[in-house]
C-alpha cells in the first residue's frame, strides 16, 4: 500500500475494504511485536535452511556469505527457528527497553 495504514482516511478505502494492490503485507511491520530476537552464530551455522523452512512469517533470509538470519523488520521473535535449528546456533536474546 502506498500510504501507511495509520494515515488512510475512510474515504480512501476501496469498496468493501478490498485490497487491490498486491504485496500489501510488506507494509505491515510485524517486527514491532518482538520481545526477543534470534541471534545466529555464523560460524556454527551449517547453511541447512531449516530455520528458513520453519519460519511462519518468511522473515528468515540467506545472507550472501551463506548463513541464515532474520529480517528484523518482520521477525516477531517467536523462537521457532531457535527451537528447530539442528546445530543449536540460534539464541533468543531479549530486546532491551529503549
Amino acid at each position: 500500500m502506498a500510504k501507511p495504514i495509520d494515515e488512510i482516511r475512510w474515504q480512501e478505502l476501496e469498496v468493501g475494504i478490498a485490497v487491490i494492490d498486491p504485496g500489501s503485507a510488506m507494509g505491515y511491520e510485524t517486527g514491532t511485536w518482538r520481545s526477543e530476537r534470534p541471534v545466529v552464530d555464523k560460524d556454527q551455522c551449517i547453511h541447512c535452511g531449516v530455520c528458513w523452512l520453519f519460519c511462519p512469517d518468511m522473515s528468515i533470509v540467506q545472507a550472501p556469505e551463506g548463513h541464515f538470519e532474520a529480517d528484523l523488520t518482520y521477525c516477531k521473535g517467536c523462537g521457532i527457528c531457535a527451537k528447530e535449528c539442528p546445530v543449536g546456533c540460534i539464541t533468543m536474546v531479549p530486546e532491551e527497553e529503549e
Partner: protein
Amino acid sequence: MAKQRKGVEVSIAMSEAVAQADVDVIAAYPITPQTHIVEHLSEIVASGDLDAEFVPVDSEHSAMSVCCGSSAVGARTFTSTSSQGLALMAEIFFITSSMRLPVVMALANRSLSGPLSIWNDHTDTMMVRDAGWIQVFVENGQESYDNMFCAFRIAEDPDVMLPLAVNFDGFILTHMIEPIIYEDDAVVKKYLPEFKMKNTLHPDKPVSMGCFAMPELYTEAQMASEAALQGSYPTIVKAWDEWAELTGRQYRPIETYMAEDAEYCIVTMGSYGETAMDAVDALRQEGEKVGVIKIRLWRPFPFDDFFAAVKGKKTLIVMDRAISFGGPGGPVASEIKSALYKQDDAPEVVSYVAGLAGRDVSVGDFKKMIIEGKDRAESKDTQGFQLYGLRG
C-alpha cells in the same frame, strides 16, 4: 385494461420474482416458514426454466458463505431464511455488508428460540438490526413480489453495493394465498440493469477481499460501512419511484394511513399494518382522530421522513414484535424515542410489545391498544413498555 391478478401463495410469488430477476446463484437451506421459497426455486432451476446454480448447502452458515463467494465473482445472488437459520448465518451476515456484497435475502420473520417456536414475530430480524444491511419491511403479497425486484435494483446499484433483506412475516404472508399482479419480463428487464461489480474475484485482476484490519483501520472500515448504508437512501427512494412509474405501485420509506389530521397514530412494521388500518377505520367511525404510520425502511432509518410524518401528533403508540431483554422494551419504540429526543413538540411515545410468536393481534386488540395507549399518554404513563395480552 387493468392487469390480471393471480391467486398465488406469497412464497411462490416471491420465488417467481427471483426467477424473473434472472438470478445467477441461489444458496439456501430450508427452514420453516421460508421453505416454500427455496423448494420452488429449486424446482424452477431443476426444470430448466431458470439458468442458475442452485447450491444445496449443509447449513445456513454455508448458505451465506456461498452467497458471499458467488456475489464476489459478480453473480446475482439470492438466499432466504428465518429465525434459527438467520442465527446460524449471523457470522457471515455481518461480513457480507462489510465486504459490500449485494446479496438479496427474503427474510421470513419468525421468533427465535427459546422456547422453540416456528411462528411469526420480529425477534429474528432485530438480532441483525445493526449488521449494516438495508432492511425493508413489506405488508402483503403484492409488496413482497414487487420488492424482490426493487431489492436487486437497490442492492446492486454502484452507488449502494450493499446486501438487502426483505422482511416479510412468516405464515401471515409466506403461507397466504393472495391476489398478486405479475409484471411482464419485459418490465423487469427494463427496470433491472445487468449486475456489474467494480472489483470481482477474477484472475485477470486479482484482489483480496475480506482481509484482516488492524486497529489502525477498523474504525475507518466501520465508518465506510456506515456511510454506505446512510448513503443508500436516495437510491432506495429513486428505485421505488421508478418502480411506481412502471407499475403504478408506489413505495416510500415511511407510509401513512389517515395520518394527515390524526392527533395520535399507531406505528407498525410489516403485515400488521393491514390490521392497524382496519382498526383505524373502525375508530374513525367512532370519531377518534387516529392514523397509522408504517415503517417500510428500517435501515437506513429514514429520520426526516419519520419526523415529517409525526409532525403535530400528540401521541405515537408503537407496536413492537420483539423485546429487548433488560433494555428499554421494544426496539422500534426505543429507536423512535431516541430519534425524537431533541425534536421540538415531540409526541409522547407509548410502547407495546404484541403478537409474539404468532399470537394473534386482532382489529379489536389494536383498538384496545390504541385507546389504552392514548390514555397512558394523557396521564404521562409512558415509561417502559406494556406486554400486550400478557396473563398474570
